[in-house]
C-alpha cells in the first residue's frame, strides 16, 4: 500500500508542491529531447530512403566526432576541421552506396539491417584505429555557464540552451527540406516504392548518397554537441540507444514523429526520474523511456506519426 502511494500519489503531490523543480526538469527534458530528435532523425532519414534500420547511426556519431576532434588535434582550426569532417561523411556516403547498398538492392530488410551491423563495427574500429580511444576534449566556443530564470528558482545552462537551439534549427531545416524541396519529394518517392521511383526517373543511387550524407551531417552535429559536453569518446556511439524509444514512439518513417517523439521522451524521462525515480530505486530514465514508448504503441502501433501499413491478403 505504501509503495503504491509512493508511485501513484506522492509524485503528484510533489509536483504540486515543487512547481519550479518540475519546470526545471521539463526545460532540461526539452533541451535533451531536441538532441534525441536529432539522433532519431538520422535513423528516420535512412529508413525512409532505403527501408533500412541503420544500426550504425551511433557509430557514425562517434566516427564523425572523432574525425573532427582528431583533425583539430593536428592543428586545424574548427572551421577547416568541420569542412573536412563533412567531406569525410560525404565520402563515407559514397563508399556505403558503392560497396554496400548497391549490392543489396531488393534484399530483405533483415539482410540490410545485418549489413549495417557490420558497418557499425567497421566505423567503431576505424575511428578508434585512426584517432585512438582516449577521451578528447572538444572546445567549440559555446559558453558553458549556468544562469538563473524565474527569480533564481530555475537553473539552466548556456551550453544546453544553445545546443538545443542548434538542434532545433537543424531539425526544422531537415523538415522543410523533406517537405518542400524537389530532392525531399524524390526521397519520399523512393521511400514509398523503389521501382516506381526508378520508373519516373528518380536516380536511386544519388538519393541514397544524398540521404547517407545528410545522416552523416546529422551524426556530426550530434557528435559535436554531445562530445563538447562529455568529451569525444567511444560512449558517443551508445547515444543511438537513446533514439530507439523516440523511433518507437514517433514512428520510423516520420520526421515530425522524430521531433515530437524526442521531446516527449526527453521530458518524460527527466520528470519520471525526478519524481518517480526515488520511489523506484533511481536510474529509471532508460527503461522508463522504452516503457513510455511501448505504452503509446498499445494505442498507435505505427507510432505517433508513422504510416499505417495496410496490406491486402
Amino acid at each position, binding site marked *: 500500500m505504501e509503495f503504491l502511494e509512493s508511485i501513484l500519489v506522492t509524485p503528484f503531490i510533489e509536483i504540486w508542491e515543487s512547481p519550479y523543480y518540475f519546470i526545471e526538469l521539463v526545460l532540461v527534458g526539452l533541451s535533451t529531447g531536441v538532441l534525441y530528435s536529432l539522433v532519431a532523425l538520422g535513423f528516420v532519414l535512412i529508413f525512409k530512403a532505403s527501408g533500412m534500420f541503420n544500426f550504425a547511426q551511433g557509430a557514425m556519431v562517434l566516427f564523425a566526432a572523432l574525425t573532427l576532434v582528431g583533425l583539430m588535434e593536428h592543428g586545424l582550426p574548427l572551421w577547416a576541421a568541420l569542412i573536412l569532417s563533412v567531406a569525410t561523411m560525404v565520402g563515407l556516403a559514397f563508399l556505403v552506396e558503392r560497396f554496400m547498398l548497391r549490392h543489396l538492392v531488393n534484399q530483405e530488410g533483415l539482410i540490410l539491417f545485418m549489413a549495417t551491423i557490420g558497418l557499425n563495427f567497421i566505423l567503431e574500429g576505424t575511428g578508434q584505429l585512426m584517432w585512438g580511444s582516449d577521451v578528447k576534449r572538444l572546445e567549440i566556443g559555446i559558453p558553458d555557464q549556468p544562469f538563473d530564470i524565474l527569480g533564481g528558482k530555475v*537553473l539552466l545552462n548556456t551550453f544546453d540552451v544553445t545546443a538545443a537551439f542548434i538542434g532545433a534549427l537543424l531539425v526544422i531545416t531537415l523538415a522543410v527540406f523533406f517537405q518542400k524541396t524537389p530532392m525531399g519529394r524524390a526521397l519520399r518517392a523512393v521511400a514509398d516504392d523503389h521501382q516506381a521511383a526508378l520508373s519516373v526517373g528518380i536516380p536511386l543511387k544519388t538519393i541514397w548518397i544524398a540521404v547517407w550524407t545528410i545522416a552523416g551531417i546529422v551524426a556530426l552535429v550530434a557528435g559535436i554537441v554531445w562530445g563538447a559536453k562529455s568529451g569525444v569518446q567511444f560512449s558517443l556511439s551508445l547515444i543511438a540507444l537513446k533514439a530507439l524509444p523516440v523511433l518507437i514512439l514517433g514512428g520510423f518513417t516520420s520526421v515530425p514523429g522524430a521531433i515530437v517523439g524526442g521531446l516527449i521522451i526527453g521530458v518524460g524521462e527527466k520528470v519520471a526520474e*525526478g519524481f518517480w525515480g526515488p520511489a523506484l530505486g533511481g536510474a529509471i530514465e532508460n527503461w522508463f523511456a522504452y516503457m513510455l514508448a511501448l505504452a503509446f504503441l498499445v494505442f498507435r502501433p505505427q507510432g505517433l506519426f508513422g504510416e499505417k501499413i495496410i496490406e491486402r491478403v
Partner: protein
Amino acid sequence: MKFRKLVLATAATVVGLGTFAAAEIAKADEQFFPMLVYRTGAYAPSGIPVANGFRDYYTLLNKRDGGINGVTVTFEECETQYKTNLGVECYEKLKGNGPTGASLFNPYSTGITYQLIPKASVDKIPILSMGYGRTSAADGRVFEWVFNPPATYWSQASAVIKYFSRRAGGYDKLAGKKIVHLHHNSAYGKEANPTLEVLAKRYGFKLTLVPVDHPGQEQASQWRQIRRIKPDFIFMSGWGVMNQVAIKEAGNIRYPMDQFVGNWWSGSDADVVPAGDGAKGYLSTTFHGAGSDFGVHADIIKHIYGGDAAAAKENKVGEVLYNRGVVNAMFATEAVRTAQAKFGNKSLTGEQVRWGLENLNITQETLDKLGFKGMVSPLKITCEDHETMGPVIIQKWDGAKWSYASEWLTPMRDIVRPLVEADAAAYAKENNITPRNCN
C-alpha cells in the same frame, strides 16, 4: 644413399630435440602473467593507462633486473572491453598459458571478478582484485583464492566519511548533514552502499543514494535532484564517461568542487581533463601517488623509453591509472618473489603464487628498493586478512596535476571488518564453504 639419409634424419632429430629441449628450458624459467585489458570500447580511456602500467612494469623487471630472481616475466593481453562475458572468455583462454599456467588474474572489473571467484578455487589460480571486486573477499578464511589489497570499497567509504567528519569539524558535527552517494548503477557502483548506510545510522547523517545508469552520458535529472537536496557533501562511485559528465554537471548546478569527492575509480586524468577549468578543485580518493616523480618512473623512462620523456608521457606514464597498473603489477610480481623464497627461483604454479600472496609483506625497505618510495604504503597480507585495510588519501586536481589534499586516512576497521565477516559468513553458508582456521 640409404645410410646417408639415415645419418641426416638422425642429425635432424637430434638438432630438433635439442632445440625443443632448449626451448623448454627457456620456458621453464618463465613466469606467465595474463593481462585482462580494455583498450577498446566505452571504458578504453580508463583501461589504456592501466594496461600500459602493467606492460611497462613487467617489461622493466626483465630489462632492469633480468626478471624476478632470474625468472623471465612473460605476459599476454586479452581484450575484455570491460565486458563480463569477454572477461570470462579471456580467463579460459589464458589460464593454461606459460610453463606452469597463469600466475594469477587481475580482472580489472568487479563484474568479471564476481564471475571468476568460483573458478579460482577450482583452477587453483588466485585472483588479485586490487581496490575493486567483492569486498567481503577480504576475509581470507572464506575466500582463500581472492585477494583485494590494499583497501576495499567499504574501507574507502569509511575513510571518506572520516574525511567529511574532519571537514565538518568532528564526527558529532556529521549529525543532520546531507550526504549523497552518486553511483554507477552496477555491482561496482552499489558496493559501498551497505557501509554508507551503517555509517549514516551511526553518525546521524542523511544519506541519499543516487544511481546513474550505464554509461552515464546523461545525468541532468540526477543533478537536478542533487540541487534540490542541497547536500553538504557528495561521494561518487563512477566509471568512464559517467565521471566526466558528473564533474561537468556539478559545475552546471554550481556545486562547490571541494565538497565533491570521487572514489579512486573516479579520480583519473581522463576524468578531469574533458571538463576543463570546471574540474579545478575536484577531489578524489587514492591509495597511491600520481605523477612521474617516483624512482620507478625514472627507471621506466630510462629502460623502456630510452630516456624519451615525451614518448613516456604519450604512453600515459605518471597518470593516475597508469600508476595504478604499475602498483598492481608490483604487488603481483612481489607475490611471486615471496613464493620463490619458499618454492625456489623457477616458474611457479598458481597455487604457489597464492601462497606468495597470502604471505606478502611489502616493507618500506622493499618499496624504497623498487622505486616506490612515497608512492604507496607498505602492506602485509595474512591468512585472515586479504585486504590489509591500507590507508587512503584525498587528492585534488588543480587543472594540470593531482596533488595530495589530506593526511593519510585509516579506514574504520571496527565498523568495516564485522561487515566483511558477516557477508563472508553468509557467502560461505550459501556455497557450503567451511571457513579455514587461520590460527
